């Protein structure tokens, strides 16, 4: 593994279950962590719906994304940024989310993108 480090930002914009984006992003995040590169996740737009508690997808034959996201901590992925506007638009409060998150406004998001070397979108 090379000594070079690049910082990665993964932008999540899609709701879970209806398409594979949330899962695709998670798999990439876990791999970046295995490669020990600096990593931040941003949840904006419908992706804040990935953070809802009490998901129970057994009836639709899928894995529980909230269980998977709870695992991020075990991979030392702790930079979880959430668009506050997206939460608000959907009537959600930061307290509803069981993960340790950092709220960002528009300018915070712009800064986050600026700060990272590679940005991957899902």
């Amino acid at each position: 593994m090379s000594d070079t480090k690049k910082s990665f930002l993964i932008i999540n914009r899609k709701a879970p279950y209806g398409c594979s984006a949330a899962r695709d992003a998670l798999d990439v995040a876990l791999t970046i962590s295995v490669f020990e590169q600096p990593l931040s996740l941003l949840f904006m737009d419908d992706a804040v719906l990935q953070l809802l508690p009490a998901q129970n997808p057994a009836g639709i034959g899928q894995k529980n994304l909230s269980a998977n996201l709870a695992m991020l901590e075990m991979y030392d992925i702790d930079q979880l940024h959430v668009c506050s506007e997206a939460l608000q638009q959907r009537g959600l409060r930061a307290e509803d989310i069981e993960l340790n998150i950092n709220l960002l406004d528009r300018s915070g998001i712009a800064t986050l993108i600026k700060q990272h070397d590679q940005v991957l979108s899902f």
Partner: protein
Amino acid sequence: MTLHTINKTPTESSALNNCLASLSDGDALLLIENGVYAAMPGYAELFTRLPASIQCYLLGEDSSARGLNDLNPDFRSIDYDGFVELSCRYNKVVSWF
């Protein structure tokens, strides 16, 4: 400074909206694929509040394919070579789709 590509019309996904909410001064927009429809004059309102430091481009192959003429003059038409040149000029490319 970042090059943002958008490949959806303003209404088929939130790509353009999310992108516009995430810009920094000095960034550039590039409309590709269905994204080029956003340069129709009817959508000009969407871009009126952009800071002057944001450069706007569209991919000519995609606008011609769709029969689009007389587009928003704020968008400069480029080809794929121009797309590559922009990718080099800006520090990174963020895709909104």
